[in-house]
């Protein structure tokens, strides 16, 4: 330990730089606009009651309100009734900064909808990838047929193509089909995972042939073998691939940015955050960082709970 102190020094310095933006993101999501502006309040802020200016502006007492409230403030003139009403509104509109930031995050934009879209898109991408890739991987690993090597060669070639790079022609194709601004546009380009085919093929190669022969003797069809024999043996590899796929598509910004324009109902979490940034004035730093925290948290928490599996999944691409 004493000999290693310099290593810890270096690594702790790295830790500070790595964690700084996370620290700031979470801290700003707790603070009031004033504290963010002046840079005070430590990590949690002082959490003093603050008044939401927009809420007050919306509920400015008008003539009718004053008439209605006259009975409650008997014997006062209009100006003082208005003043007391204003004070009531302000009391109603005041809240802790942390409550303000997070409630704004969920009410200013349909954040729940965005999160739901994120789940829908990532889950459907993963399921379709599996439905397409597993039978192909099985055929390439365990069936002998004319042209198999050519098919596998094609898979190896397609591994070279980053899907983001061909975004433009894909976008044109989808636009021609009238599919932009649909869930289909968000999912379709990712339905084929060449990497998934490659990975599962390598895994299936290690499954003993006897297992498959036994299943054939039992009269199982080849498709049934894929789903009832091969799939259960491949659970660890599938789990790693699931993590790989879900992380990539939950965090993806480029592709949704291209095919979803303006239709908020289809926004994925990163798009929602981007829009928040677009129309936020300076006082919206707090709610925006709250949104960012909400979007980043699910994967970070899942990662902290199952680190080993996540690191395995994300570094899968290194397993060649």
């Amino acid at each position: 330990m004493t000999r290693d102190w310099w290593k810890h020094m270096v690594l702790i310095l790295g830790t500070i730089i790595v964690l700084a933006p996370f620290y700031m993101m979470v801290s700003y999501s707790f603070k009031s606009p004033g504290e963010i502006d002046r840079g005070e309040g430590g990590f949690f802020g002082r959490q003093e009651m603050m008044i939401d200016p927009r809420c007050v502006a919306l509920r400015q007492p008008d003539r009718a309100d004053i008439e209605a409230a006259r009975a409650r403030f008997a014997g006062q003139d209009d100006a003082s009734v208005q003043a007391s009403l204003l004070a009531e509104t302000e009391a109603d509109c005041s809240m802790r900064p942390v409550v303000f930031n997070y409630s704004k995050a969920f009410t200013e934009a349909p954040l729940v909808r965005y999160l739901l879209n994120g789940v829908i898109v990532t889950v459907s991408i993963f399921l379709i990838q599996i439905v397409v890739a597993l039978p192909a991987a099985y055929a390439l690993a365990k069936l002998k047929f004319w042209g198999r090597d050519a098919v596998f060669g094609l898979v190896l070639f397609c591994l070279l193509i980053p899907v983001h790079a061909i975004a433009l022609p894909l976008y044109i194709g989808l636009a021609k089909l009238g599919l932009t601004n649909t869930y289909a546009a968000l999912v379709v380009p990712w339905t084929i995972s060449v990497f998934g085919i490659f990975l599962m093929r390598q895994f299936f190669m290690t499954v003993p042939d006897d297992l498959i022969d036994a299943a054939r003797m039992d009269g199982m069809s080849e498709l049934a073998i894929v789903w009832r024999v091969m799939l259960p043996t491949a659970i660890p590899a599938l789990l790693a691939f699931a993590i790989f796929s879900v992380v990539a598509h939950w965090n993806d910004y480029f592709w949704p940015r291209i095919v979803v324009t303006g239709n908020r109902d289809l926004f994925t979490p990163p798009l929602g955050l981007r829009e928040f940034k677009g129309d936020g004035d300076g006082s919206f730093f707090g709610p925006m960082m709250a949104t960012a925290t909400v979007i980043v948290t699910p994967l970070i928490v899942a990662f902290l709970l199952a680190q080993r599996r996540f690191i395995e999944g994300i570094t899968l691409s290194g397993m060649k």
Partner: protein
Amino acid sequence: MVAIDPSLAADVTKPKADNRQARTGWGLAAPALILMFLILLVPIIAAGVLSFTNYSLGNPSFDWVGLQNYERLFTRSTYEKMYVATFTYVVTVVPISVGLGLGAALLVHSLGRIGDIYKTIYFLPVMATLLAMAIAWEFMLHPTIGMVNRTLEMACGTWFEVIPFFADGCAEGFPLWLGDRDYAIWVVCFIGIWQGFGFNMVLFLAGLTSVHRELYHAAEMDGARSGWERFRLVTWPALGPTTVFVVTISCIRAFQVFDTIEAFWPQGGGPNKSAYVMMFAIFEKGIQQNLIGIGSAITMLFLLFVMFLTLIQRWLVERKVHY
């Protein structure tokens, strides 16, 4: 189950079974094959064809313009800036993130169990949504209320002012970072490194665990006493294939930088187009401005770079896979 003599059954049904297997084989691979063609190969061909036209979405017809789009790519100063920005990014981010990844892996590995905590922390940026973190960095780098300049200002009035950077900063204000064309691309590079080195570290750690301990003993017997000697003689050669892989994957990821640039400068790609990288150019020209021809030409050039890199990697791996 009926008992069948396997050899007999095989003899009788062999041609038939082969035939059946061929059909099921193609049948099972068909959906994947069709999608591979439609989603990966057809678009490349389409981009190749469109790069010779002046097509725009919504136009009923288009003209063949020959090599005009490519000619523009090599003559206009905008595209010169695009190459400069892209290659500055790749050439900066790849070596530094690979170097830091290797350094961190060696340190973490030598610490044993305690090192795992650093591994977890350094991996966090890989998991986090890059767009969200880019916005967080943007606030950190805010010229007046950002944490970075506030921290730098704390050094004013101390001996730090001996350093010219601090002297200037304290006198005239610290840099605007994202608004300054001298700093913009470097800030983007820094965030790229920040995000990617943890990934490289984990790949190197996986490589390190496969180095046999006996090799270190053997090297010590042969007189490799210092840590550096052991690294040079054992660790580095053993990590060869990992390094080739890490460098390639870092290059491909670096070429695809987009999220940070779009988050910081939705229009124009940075002050004076100093951060106008290729992916952003494809997005701006092809999708926002609907200049499909020129966008396709950039796409083709991009694919060429990426495929070239991967082929170099495969060649390197095949050449020195044996250690």
